């Protein structure tokens, strides 16, 4: 198939299939808001919180689904209303046991992360929601088509876009506070900033972002989506503001590119492609950074 034919394929897809259009919109929205906190997470040495929280989401999703099946109610996708509060609570617990008891934070995260992943997978095998277990696991863990099926549910689209916008607005409003408690929490607390409150706000935002991002790249790859754009931006830029803006742009571009590639070529599962594009851009920026530093 020539490249032009593939482009035609792309045009055909977006012209005729609403789910693809919506998926792109939601994908961009999620990529936008999820990269905002990447810098903070990386610098607080909490890069893996994305992973831990997404495993918690995964675990709680399957448990809730199993329970729901037992009662005979509910569809898998509706679980966001359960998953979000549970993830938020875990996020708060993790972040608040954080910087001053670093070891406790690390092992708590490890326990939670792997434990819920195991239980989630166990439940999925004991209470399968469909015959095709492998596909379900694939979708939840790697996000092969999650965002695309999401695109077919208008209410989910609006919910996700709404949450993304809300997260972004909160981030902008609390930007200076987030900077202060990330750079030097002790100083902030000492000079009268309510660090604990802001840490909690941070925890809530992170949880929302993780739950959203899981729909784009799946539970196992969430860390990559949140953290890679920030790391990429940090290769080249020197101020917090520049890094934040750059990571947002990188994230949106990579996710869009990933979705387009997945639509043009066969056998490219969405989550992995987006992460792969992120990695490639990271490599490019690393080289640019090296060159700039030598020059």
């Amino acid at each position, binding site marked *: 198939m020539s490249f032009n034919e593939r482009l035609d394929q792309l045009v055909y897809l977006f012209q005729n299939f609403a789910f693809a259009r919506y998926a792109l919109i939601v994908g961009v929205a999620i990529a936008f808001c999820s990269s905002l906190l990447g810098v903070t997470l990386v610098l607080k040495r909490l890069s893996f919180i994305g992973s831990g929280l997404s495993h918690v989401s995964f675990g709680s999703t399957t448990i809730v689904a199993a329970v729901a099946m037992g009662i005979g109610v509910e569809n898998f996708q509706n679980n966001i209303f359960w998953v979000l509060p549970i993830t938020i609570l875990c996020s708060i617990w993790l972040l608040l046991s954080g910087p001053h008891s670093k070891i406790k934070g690390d092992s708590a995260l490890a326990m939670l992360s792997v434990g819920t992943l195991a239980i989630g997978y166990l439940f999925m095998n004991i209470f399968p929601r469909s015959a095709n277990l492998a596909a379900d696991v694939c979708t939840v863990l790697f996000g092969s088509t999650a965002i695309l099926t999401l695109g077919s549910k208008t209410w989910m689209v609006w919910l996700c876009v709404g949450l993304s916008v809300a997260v972004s607005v909160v981030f902008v409003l*609390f930007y200076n506070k987030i900077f202060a408690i*990330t*750079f030097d929490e002790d100083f902030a607390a*000492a000079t*009268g900033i309510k660090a604990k409150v802001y840490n909690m706000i941070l925890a809530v935002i992170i949880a929302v972002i993780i739950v959203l991002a899981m729909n784009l790249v799946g539970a196992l790859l969430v860390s990559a989506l949140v953290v890679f754009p920030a790391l990429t931006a940090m290769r080249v830029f020197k*101020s917090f503001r520049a890094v934040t803006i750059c990571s947002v742009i990188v994230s949106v571009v990579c996710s869009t590119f990933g979705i387009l590639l997945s639509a043009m070529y066969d056998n490219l599962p969405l989550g992995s492609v987006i992460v792969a594009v992120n990695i490639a851009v990271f490599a490019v920026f690393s080289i640019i950074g090296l060159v700039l530093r030598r020059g």
Partner: protein
Amino acid sequence: MAQLTCSKLTAGYEGKAVVKNISFAVNAGDYLCIVGENGSGKSTLMKTLLRLKSPMSGKIEAGDGLHLNEIGYLPQQTVIQKDFPASVREVVLSGCLNGCGLRPFYNRKEKKLAAENMEKLGITNLAKRCYRELSGGQQQRTLLARALCATRKILLLDEPTAGLDPVATAEMYDLIAELNKSGTSIIMISHDIANAVKYASHILHIGGQTMQFYGEVAKYEL
């Protein structure tokens, strides 16, 4: 009334007292140096003064028009800071945060204050530079400028010359002395007793989990 009064303070963490029965008072314009062996509890004491830790017993009182959030702080460097992408200006500005309340952005007055403090500490030319690329001395001056943005009244400094070369150390002490002369009270932790005695007005010596000496520097015997 003194700006900061400590009465029979016992401080520690996780139920273990590290220093007991500390009493002192800092008046406006004082320069208090807290000295003692490594691990004698000086940092714990300072953190308690800053309300980062709760005192196990005893009282800390602010007076003379000082509010407890008008205290500037220069902490020891934490690991995070070293590779943080932040410009000097962003770091210094963050000292103004305690005056912002819920306001999301810094106003012109605060930006002016930050510029003045950078000027005062001679780092205006570094404003756009990345904090992590600075030398130890430059980083300390940035953090000091930040502390000044938080307040003019009283500064608490935790080992401000740790890791600095002799030239930078001397410069730092000079800077702090100048600030003190222009009216800022200083409480500084240092294990550099020679310099402490040279610049300070009062000494608090901590040893054996308690106060070994508190008083004017002239009365302090090494």
